[in-house]
């Protein structure tokens, strides 16, 4: 054994004798990610084809808007809200009918769910993403007329332009109480089952909408609201939605 071996042995013994490891110091900070940092070219080159594809697709023109439509324009119904609710009805009903041989009665969405304006000019896929950036999808719920009446009460109290499709006509009196509520021109029948198209957020009680439960059935169409809008806009040369009489308040 040389002196080297002895030293090595000593070192080993020491390591074994002090096996416990402990934290002696901790340093914590956050680092800004900003344009002072170099860009990794490998990463940039990897992202690039994805970005190009998305931009090309997002900027493809699917319709035209003669005016700018905002959810702030209108009292109890807005052009953009009417456009969305009618689109959900007309795109979802064929899917629902094919599966169930039944028809949707009308659509109810929420005012807060309109996330952006539609600007005057070319309407692109990007416009649809702006209006509906989330993944919410269409749900058709079967509820009794009594619950449809609860929905009317809710709408009268909410005093917001929650989008409804044109099959429903809701009129409030000057005190904002329900004056008349008709579906397909008929008063609501408390004994009848109605099929309401809405989104999964509202079905789950979002915005305090409790009238979808209990229910007589729930049909998940696996159809995203955004895709509804894209499919609907593609069918139209020009979007020409209007504020109309579907949800109004009488002034005297």
């Amino acid at each position: 054994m040389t002196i080297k071996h002895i030293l090595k042995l000593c070192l080993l013994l020491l390591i074994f004798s002090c096996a416990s490891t402990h934290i002696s110091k901790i340093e914590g900070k956050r680092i800004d990610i900003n344009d002072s940092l170099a860009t990794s070219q490998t990463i940039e080159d990897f992202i690039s084809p994805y970005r190009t594809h998305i931009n090309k697709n997002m900027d493809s023109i699917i319709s035209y808007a003669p005016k700018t439509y905002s959810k702030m324009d209108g009292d109890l119904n807005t052009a953009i809200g009417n456009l969305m609710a009618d689109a959900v009805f007309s795109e979802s009903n064929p899917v629902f009918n094919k599966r169930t041989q039944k028809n949707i009665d009308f659509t109810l969405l929420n005012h807060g769910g309109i996330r952006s304006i539609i600007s005057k000019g070319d309407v692109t896929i990007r416009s649809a993403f702006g209006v509906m950036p989330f993944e919410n999808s269409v749900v058709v719920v079967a509820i009794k007329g009594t619950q449809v009446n609860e929905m009317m009460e809710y709408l009268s109290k909410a005093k917001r332009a929650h989008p409804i499709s044109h099959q429903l006509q809701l009129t409030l009196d000057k005190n904002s109480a329900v004056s008349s509520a008709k579906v397909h021109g008929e008063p609501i029948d408390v004994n009848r089952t109605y099929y309401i198209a809405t989104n999964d957020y509202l079905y789950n009680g979002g915005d305090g909408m409790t009238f979808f439960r209990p229910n007589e059935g729930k049909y998940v169409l696996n159809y995203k609201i955004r895709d509804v809008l894209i499919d609907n806009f593609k069918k139209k040369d020009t979007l020409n939605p209007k504020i109309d009489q579907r949800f109004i308040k009488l002034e005297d």
Partner: protein
Amino acid sequence: MKRRHFIQKSTAATVLASVGGLGLQSFSPAKTKKITILHTNDVHSHIDPFGPEDGRNANKGGVARRASLIESIRQENPNTLLLDAGDIFQGTPYFNYYGGELEFKLMSMLKYDVATIGNHDFDNGIDGLYAQIPHAKFEFVSANYDFSNTVMDTHVNPYKIIVRDGIKIGIFGLGIQLDGLVNKDMYKETVYHDPIEIAQDMSRILKEEQSCDLVICLSHIGYYYKNNPDKVSDINVARATKDIDLIIGGHTHTFLPKPTIEKNSIGKNVLVNQVGCFGLYLGKVDFYFESGKGVSAEGASIIV
């Protein structure tokens, strides 16, 4: 160059000071080891940097920049771990078009080690998350989500142990209550368990049974709910447990300028950190280890 020189110098000074201190106490030599923990949370598909016109985050963020930063930190210290605290998905068209594929591929290229699962990671349903798993070369941890009756079964572990430079690091995951936050059709049969009890269990397993030198909780339960202080949060987990060294959080998009130092159930320090959202910041926590007989961890100095 100057900066690096300075760092080397200050590290050397620390080592000297520690050796001196130990020498008097135990007459045993000490070697300082350094483990660097890098972390992000709530990146929400923000792959590109914000543009110059952005009202709030102009010219901030971007994965390609984060990549070069992480690379330079790894060159400084190869014993670096990179972690993400969930909500990887949802927020830009990259997610809408590719369902999270690009997010996972990029995180793999950046060599993320471990991630936990946030509520938005269920946005395309648990099947949508499962579909992207093949693109992830990193691992998922969640100790309080029971995925046994879902497609994610076997793809998520309660914890992951990684050994770097002989230091044993245990990382366990915590997820937020899904009921009321995520549609049941999306999370399906995922079962949520109380994070506090699970964290108490996990820290015991990692510290006592697995003898980890460093215990990290990777959480997506939220930093702290001021208006609902009893709601389970990272701060409450820190206070109700022992043996956790660091909680890396997410969900509440809390921009902490520096880690919070909280006292655990036996009065020891726990670091709680969260770096806001959208990849605007990278969190960095360096742990220095000494090996020596009979020296407890209580002396750890914390510089934040």
